[in-house]
């Protein structure tokens, strides 16, 4: 039906270590799902399973009605921010064009249609006027916008974002998340983050991952879930959003 991602009884291990244990997850069309959890809890692994980069030991994963490998061309992916070479000789436009690879395949060159799509994606992220500027000349926040544009340029039905706000200063974060909110009007978004307050403000569903996945099909954070996921008491701060249900502190 409208299920974009369906994960059933997923187990993933690395050697002796269990990374994901019996994870079940359903992402519906036009969801904006935030996945939070401690570092090393398996958030990134879960995204990579959805992309088909990591094979599950057990369980089934269906994405956009097919296998993750087949769905990959219809997914836009923003990997965790890596420390790339800041003097790499390439422009914003060239970086965004890389996102067209899945559609073009080996050997063939970028067409004028690809270039137009790349400019449109930059436009959406408010970066079109800087298309020809060297990638290293941008601030961290601008670079993340360019990388989101790269994820968008393949016109995906599903966006997977791994810590998209990393490297963006607090002042620009609000604007950045609002941009993601606008994209969410058309595209299903799954976003991994460690920033609970930012996630709870902008997303509409939240899952906590720490080996197991805790999910309530709503954005109401349940303190027990978070504490279970983080394995330590978590102070929850409400932002004055009336419908959020938080446990009262003692």
């Amino acid at each position, binding site marked *: 039906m409208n299920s974009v991602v369906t994960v059933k009884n997923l187990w993933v291990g690395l050697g002796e270590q269990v990374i994901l244990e019996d994870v079940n997850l359903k992402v519906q069309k036009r969801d904006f799902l935030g996945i939070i959890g401690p570092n090393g809890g398996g958030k990134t692994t879960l995204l990579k399973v959805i992309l088909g980069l990591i094979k599950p030991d057990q369980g089934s994963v269906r994405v956009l009605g097919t296998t993750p490998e087949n769905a990959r061309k219809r997914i836009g992916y923003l990997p965790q921010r890596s420390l790339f070479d800041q003097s790499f000789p*390439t422009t914003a436009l*060239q*970086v965004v064009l*890389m996102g067209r690879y899945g559609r073009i395949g080996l050997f063939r060159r970028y067409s004028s249609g690809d270039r137009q799509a790349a400019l449109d994606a930059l436009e959406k992220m408010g970066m079109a006027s800087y298309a020809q500027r060297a990638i290293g000349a941008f601030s961290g926040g601008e670079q993340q916008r360019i990388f989101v544009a790269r994820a968008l340029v393949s016109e995906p039905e599903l966006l997977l974002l791994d810590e998209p706000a990393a490297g963006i200063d607090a002042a620009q974060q609000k604007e950045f998340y609002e941009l993601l909110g606008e994209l969410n009007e058309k595209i299903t978004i799954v976003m991994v983050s460690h920033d609970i307050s930012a996630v709870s403000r902008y997303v509409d569903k939240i899952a906590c991952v720490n080996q197991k996945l805790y999910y309530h099909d709503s954005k109401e954070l349940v303190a027990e879930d978070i504490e279970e996921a983080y394995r330590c008491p978590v102070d929850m701060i409400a932002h004055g959003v009336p419908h959020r249900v938080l446990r009262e502190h003692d």
Partner: protein
Amino acid sequence: MIEIFQYEFMRNALMAGAIAAVLCGVIGVYVILNRIVFISGGIAHTAFGGIGLGYFLGRDPLLFAVLFSVAAALGIGMISSTRARVSEDTAIGVFWASGMSLGIIFVSLSRGYAPDLFDYLFGNILAVSQTDVELILGLTLVIVLVVALLYKELMILSFDPTYGEAMGLPVRSLRLLLLCMVALSVVVLIKIVGIILVIALLTIPGAIGRQHADGLKEIMIISILLGIVFVFAGLVISYYLNIPSGATIILTAAAVFFASTAVTR
């Protein structure tokens, strides 16, 4: 100065040098961007095993150098990506030294004296024959063609291989292909600057190009032009001072590199 180019060996030398400059300009940029300078060094030194085997069997040493360098490229590339707990620089060290050792043993087992062994270690562009020029031209054409066909793929590989993998780019195969192209380039360059000096010609022109241009193609063009200048200048200087050509070419390049670095600081 024109009279020195009346000799056929000088014309061959210049021709080989100019073609090699094109090769270095194109492949050297990827060596720098992918940080595989020392893998390239390892591949070059492993090739010495092939040179030795060529002497031992009485065949063309360069032919066996091709086999050894490609084997080193695949070996270093594959061992370091397995779970065998061998890091890349460890694999480089092992291949580097064992290739050299094999070469020395083969040469010592060969009958007679190996007169031009020194040329393979330090290069002798003046000994380049017409056949060598054709071999260098052929390999260069193949490599330039492969780079032209895989330009966008190599760009993704160099910039962000993790993302490339997520897009379905065959990152592992592409990296091995790049290492094989480096291996073939190394063999071409052995005749000109020798095994020990190969990495200088692969890296210096690109490094200077990078200081003065922001685009990949621009850097390639600058590197090619610089490479031609270095070979020409090194050749002329070595001729008049009667000093080894390979080392002179490298030192010319290094002098420009330091000057360029001082200027761009």
